[in-house]
Structure formats: C-alpha cells, structure tokens
C-alpha cells in the first residue's frame, strides 16, 4: 500500500512538473500583460515537433535538439508578442482575447500543415527502469523530473536574481512605477514572451518524449495550465510551481482512490474548491492587487 502511494506520488509529480512548466509560461505572460495566451499549448507542440525533426533529420541528441528548439521557441515567442499582441496593447482586453484565440488556430493549423496529422513520439533511448523497494522509477521519468526541476530553478534564479528578472516582477506588480524606474516595458514584454515560449517548448518536448506530440494535445495542456494558474494564483510564480505539482498529484491520487473515470474532473473540482475557499489562489496573499 505504501509502495503504491509513493508510486502514485512519483507518477503525479512527473506529470505535475510538466504542468508546472506550462503554467510558468502562462503565468508570467498573464502577470505582465494580462493576456490569457491560449496559443501557448500550440507553441509547446510546435517545439515538440521541431525537436523530433532535429533528431530525425540531423541525428543530433535529445538535449541539443531540445536546446535549439527552445531557442527557436523563444524567438517565435518574441515574434508573437511583436506581431500579434503588441499592436493591441492599449485596446480593450477583448482584442487580445480574440487575438489569442486566432493565434491558437493559426499555429495549430501550421503544425498540421508542416508536421502532419500523425502522432510523433520523441525518441530518447532512456528505456531503463530503476526499482527502489518496489517503487519503479523509469529512467525517462526521472530525467523529466530533473529537467523540469532544473528549468524551474534556472527560471527562478533568473527572475529573482537578475536585473531583467527584477524588471519583469516590477512590471507585473506595478507597471507605472516600473516605468518611473526606467524599465522599458516593451523589452520586458518581449523577454517574457521569449522566456515563456522557451519553457513551453521544453514542456512540449517532455510531453512528446513521455507521451506524444499530436494534434489535440495542445488544448489539453493549456486547459491544465490555466487550471494551475487558478489554483496557484494568477500571475504568481510560486503558485504555478506548487499548483502544477498539486494538480499532477491530485490527478494520480484521484485515479487511485476515487476512480480513473474522474481523473480529469479532479482538476475542475480543485479549481472550484480554490475559487470558493481562497479565490486569490493558493500562493497569493489576500491584500495584494
């Protein structure tokens, strides 16, 4: 029984760490620009396809392919910000909302056109399985947890310890004051989209290695990402980290102790619960903003 509990916890943390990566990107964009960037999942899938393409076409390893794809993703993010969202930054929020929906369709269709309809599984070669006292730890899942943890820590350091990161937080917390400090909000927006898209691509690659990159996956990812945002608090970075893990583990436990049929319902029950009890999210203080 304990073994199963630990196993489910491990399973949940692996999935949750991917949710966290998705949610981190969504939350910093929401924090800075107040945009619900629905196309994030499609960007993630694009990164997954691209990584697969690099591995197949140039025979490079998973990690270099992933790094290049993240860089391309970052560039794509900057372009999206400039071309799609920047022009409507002063318009009513409904404009950005419509743009977000449009972008989702465009990127999704572009993925279909370029990469086809077939599901793609990113080959990793990480096929070993470690067994510790009955708890099985597949190599790939351990790496996924490691990669996600590395990216989360790197991003946290970037946001907490660098001037750019401080600028990002400043814009999120008080935009006019940030401008008064001499922070260029445009630069920050582009940076945030770049960073967020790179993280999204990383999530897409991990999904593609563990499961598959395929049409229809992106929608699920974005829904889970926003569920995490509501769980952890809109715009909150610690909220995204904790929220993602909580969601992943809750889903695993729901399958184990309630019913596998209700696995997906659990995300929404959690969301509703949090909205009722702590509407500002798990990781936000009530007083702020």
């Amino acid at each position, binding site marked *: 029984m304990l073994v199963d509990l630990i196993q489910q916890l491990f399973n949940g943390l692996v999935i949750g760490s991917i949710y966290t990566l998705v949610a981190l990107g969504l939350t910093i964009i929401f924090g800075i620009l107040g945009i619900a960037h629905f196309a994030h999942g499609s960007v993630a899938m694009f990164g997954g396809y691209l990584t697969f393409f690099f591995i197949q076409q140039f025979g490079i390893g998973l990690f270099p392919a992933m790094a290049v794809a993240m860089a391309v993703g970052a560039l794509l993010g900057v372009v999206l910000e400039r071309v799609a969202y920047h022009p409507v930054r002063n318009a009513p929020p409904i404009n950005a909302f419509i743009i977000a929906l449009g972008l989702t369709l465009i990127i999704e269709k572009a993925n279909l056109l370029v990469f086809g309809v077939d599901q793609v599984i990113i080959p990793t070669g990480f096929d070993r399985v470690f067994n510790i006292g009955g708890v099985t730890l597949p190599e790939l899942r351990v790496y996924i947890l490691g990669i996600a943890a590395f990216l989360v820590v790197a991003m946290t350091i970037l946001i907490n310890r660098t*001037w750019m990161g*401080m*600028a990002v*937080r*400043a814009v999120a*917390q*008080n935009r*006019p*004051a*940030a*401008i*008064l*400090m*001499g*922070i*260029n*909000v445009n630069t920050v927006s582009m940076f945030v989209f770049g960073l967020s898209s790179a993280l999204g691509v990383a999530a897409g690659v991990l999904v593609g290695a563990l499961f598959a990159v395929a049409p229809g996956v992106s929608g699920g990812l974005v829904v889970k990402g926003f569920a995490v945002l509501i769980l952890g608090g809109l715009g909150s970075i610690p909220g995204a980290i904790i929220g993602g893990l909580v969601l992943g583990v809750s889903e695993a436990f729901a399958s184990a102790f309630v019913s596998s049929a209700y696995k997906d319902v659990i995300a929404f029950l959690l969301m509703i619960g949090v909205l009722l009890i702590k509407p500002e999210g798990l990781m936000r*203080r009530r*007083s*702020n*903003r």
Partner: protein
Amino acid sequence: MLTVTNLRIAYGGAEVVHGVSLEVGEGECVALIGPNGAGKSSLLKAVCGLIKPTAGNIVFEGADITGMAGHEVARRGIAMCPEGRQMFPEMTVMENLRLGAYRRRKEDISAEIEEVMTLFPRLRERASQMAGTLSGGEQEMVAISRALMAKPQLCIFDEPSLGIAPKVVDEIEDTLVKIKALGVTVLLVEQAVSMALRVADRAYVLEAGEVVAAGTSAEMSSDPRVQRAYLGA
C-alpha cells in the same frame, strides 16, 4: 533645468490642464501647490512621460522631452516619488530600493543603499520585509529612497505627506531639507502647504488647471489669497 511651456493635458477630450508654464532651475526646490483635482499629478505624469500632453513643451536640460517614453525620461535623470507611494508590494524593501537604481544597474550601488539607510534608519530593519506589508509612513520612506537611488538630476515628489501620520510628516520634511542640502533639484507637490513653503525656494499655485500665482516662498506665504485658501489664516 526643467522648463514647461503652455502645457495642455486632456483625458479623453476633457482638458484638465490648460496651458501651464513653469520652471525649475538647477539646484532649486520648487513647490507646486493647489487643491485636489487642480491637475498637479497630471502635470507631473506628463513630465515623467507616463501620459502624453495634447499641447505644449517640456524641456529638460536643454532637450525636448515632450511625449517621450517614460523609461527614456527616467534614464535622462528625472526620478519621481509618486502619489500613493506605488510600491512593488511583493518585493522586499531592498529590492524596491535596488529597482530605484535600475538606470544605474551596471554600477556599484552599495554606497547609495548605505546613504538612504542612514537617511531612514527604519529601512535597515525592514530591508528584507515585503514592501506591501509596511505601514504608510514606511512605504513613503521607501518611495523617497527609491527615487533617490536613481541619483537623479531632478527629483519629483507628489504629495509625500498624503495619508501619513503627523509625526512622520515632520520626519519627511526633515528629509526633504536634507535632500535639498545634498544639492538635488526638487519639484515638490504638496497639499501640506505650510510645510512645502518652509522647504521650497519658490512656489506655483495651480487651480483648476491654471497657474494662478507664483513667486518665492516668502512672497507666497505672505500672499493673502494663499493664506486664506491654504494656510488657514
């Protein structure tokens, strides 16, 4: 140092500042006083590039900065301690201060940190506390210090005494005097008029978007209209 000429500001067609001109000379401390809604904050925001004026000119150190982006203005050396303090609430006091020095982020700023900590010893105790959890007076200290961290050529204060306990207002007055003594050029907006006139060299009176009186602080203090309207005489 700062010359504002015939500045007009409107919000969605409704003009609130109707052709205001004023000047702040190098090393001077100038007060801008007037009732609520006169357009003082709007004028300051236009100077700092947070809003665009509909007409008129703003010249800072010989360069036309009218309509320039806010961060560009800040980089040229105008710092503002805004109305309502405008903390970064989920950052520590220290981070708020460091952000004040954003335009000097490639330089060593430890000396300036030390300086403002000496100015407001309370901040030293609060350095790692979230700014959002501070009292109003403490936040004002952070706001003032943050503006000073930029080592600005011109430092603008928008009602630093608003909503602050009287004891702390005295402290703020002392600080303003010290800042002036450091040779920083100051543009001070205040409704605590007697305090403002004690600190400033000159003053403008703004009413309903127009300058209705101007002169040295001494002149203003003895102006019967000012006495009646603002000094409760």
